[in-house]
């Protein structure tokens, strides 16, 4: 070893590159995870985009039971209910469900609903044509609104999948959207 420090530096540079690369990889896992979940529907994630309904053959031989649950996150004062807790639909048939949200508090609050499908493998077969979860809701003090959600079940859904549950959790995101609160308040 004529110049040991030079030899060391060659390896050190490579190792430090690995360290920095892996630190970046940790953060790269975040978008990778999103892409993976959106593609596969793993983890009960549904798409955040509205689909355009094309007239299709309704599979009248099958009935899928879809159940709806509403949930309020900690610290969110709204009342949040679904009018129809359970529907039976044929794959391909469009159905509309109404959700009611009320802000009983004395201030304007911005709400964001996040859906989750269980079992998670059913998530990619739930196609939403219209959903209040695609955007944020701003409710002034005491205001109440009906929020529609139109969907159909993809006829590709496997034969053994006859029942799934869609849960909406409502979060208070006012702190992240001060301008929305001011414009209405």
């Amino acid at each position, binding site marked *: *070893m004529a110049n*040991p420090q030079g*030899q*060391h530096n060659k*390896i*050190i540079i490579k*190792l*430090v590159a*690995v*360290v*920095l*690369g*892996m*630190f970046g*990889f*940790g*953060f790269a*896992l*975040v978008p990778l*995870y999103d892409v993976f*979940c959106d593609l*596969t529907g*793993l*983890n*009960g*994630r549904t798409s955040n985009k509205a689909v355009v309904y094309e007239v299709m053959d309704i599979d009248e031989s099958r009935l899928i039971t879809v159940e709806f649950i509403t949930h309020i*996150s*900690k610290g969110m004062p709204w009342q949040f209910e679904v009018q129809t807790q359970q529907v039976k639909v044929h794959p391909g048939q469009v159905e509309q469900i109404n959700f009611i949200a009320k802000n009983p508090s004395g201030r304007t609050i911005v709400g*964001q609903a*996040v859906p989750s499908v*269980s*079992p*998670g*493998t059913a998530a990619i077969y739930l196609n939403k044509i219209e959903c209040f979860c695609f955007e944020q809701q701003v409710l002034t003090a005491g205001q109440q609104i009906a929020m529609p959600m139109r969907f159909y079940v993809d006829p590709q859904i496997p034969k053994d999948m006859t029942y799934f549950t869609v849960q909406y*959790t409502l*979060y*208070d*995101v006012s*702190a*992240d959207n001060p301008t929305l609160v001011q414009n209405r308040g």
Partner: protein
Amino acid sequence: MTSLSTEHQGSGHDDHHDDHHEHAIPKGIKRWLYTTNHKDIGTLYLWFAFIMFLTGGAMAMVIRAELFQPGLQIVEPGFFNQMTTVHGLIMVFGAVMPAFTGLANWLVPMMIGAPDMALPRMNNWSFWILPFAFSILLASLFMEGGGPAFGWTFYAPLSTTYSNDNTALFVFSVHMMGASSIMGAINVIVTIFNMRAPGMTWMKMPLFVWTWLITAFLLIAVMPVLAGAVTMVLTDKFFGTSFFDAAGGGDPVMFQHIFWFFGHPEVYIMILPAFGIISAIVPTFSRKPLFGYASMVYATTSIALLSFIVWAHHMFTTGMPVFAEMFFMLATMLISVPTGVKIFNWVATMWRGSLSFEVPMLFALAFIVLFTIGGLSGLMLAITPLDFQYHDTYFVVAHFHYVLVTGAIFSIMAAVYYWLPKWTGKMFDITLAKWHFWCSLISVNVLFFPMHFVGLAGMPRRIPDYALQFADFNKWISLGGFAFGLSQLIFLALLIKACRKQGDPVSSQVWEGAEGLEWEIPSPAPYHTFETPPVVK
């Protein structure tokens, strides 16, 4: 690596004439603060690890005292959670990992015939940030709101939405621990790549060097991911990002994926050096070369590679699709093949050897038996449908304490007893050592074995109170815990005696069957060794 015959060129007994010895070793605190000597830094790491072991152990005593009987007697549930969290963090990052790094510092240069580690100044730095990291973590326990209470795995949203502001201290201390480990790992890799003595080819390297090399690569691959995970927790909590917050489009389950992508290789970081230690001790006291040296190297490499594709077996109950559960179950079970190769190789090494049962060998044998028990409970946990029953119960606690306490920590104790006479030049107090071994062996099984039963019966982990039917077993577990804790004070007494250089002088070989470069330098090992590299034939 079996028949190392070496030729010293100016090392060994003659090296007192060397130039470097004209510089006197600094005395007092400055020697330890400024040292760049691999032996001094190894000693610092080992003492630091032992102090942390006793600190984390004291927290375990609080946990076991509270669980001695059902109901809340001694501590508040919030403080109990801080104890389980900080106990885990200290034992993983403060005790096991620094102890292995300390052993690497002492032994890797001596085993490959190098004068020191490749990067001695960075070596000093990577040690000295550790006391600061752990001071920050421990200080948070005494601050308003208390220390981290979300488990050592710091799952979001427990560590984000539901934690207190001291979480920032936890994050920074983990950053510092990670930086220390990464620097230590880089140092080990550069040393092994560039500083092997002439003739020390890859397949002649002692297995401790091999296992540490692979461990170092695991460290630089996954510690940065941990640093990323704690950084995301920090920004989610304090800077309004939503990595793990569903309201902002994030996902708390993703936290578990990122954490266990680090966490599973991490458990092999804590066991691969142990395999190297056992592979050094068993041949010595069997007076036979290690059976299947090459297969040991390949088994270690395959365990390290497989460790990257099994992380989700910690998450079977999060609602994965059946295909993913099958994949992670089978990949996990696959790891038992190379691990089994190792166990069989150690047993085959002992087969028809002339065995003797000195203290390091006692710990090594206990390791082989008890680590295998921990491995088998791991196989049970790998079976997805069964894991739904075992998940988050004391069965999991029993499993990882068998592999970490009777696995990693027993191997560290075996290593200390094996190489301590080389470090001090004096034989340790064998009577005390045997007391330490037998007390630890019996108490550790009273402590951890019944945890299997209460776990299978459904007792959840991380709780300060439990249902009445678990009372009898928990009493036994706590008594075993207190006995195991007290047994470590015997070890402390023995180490203090050894550091005061009490005991009979030993030869340079120390143990009759010991082979390798470190046994050819005098005992105690001189401050500087192999300044002229030995030639390994």
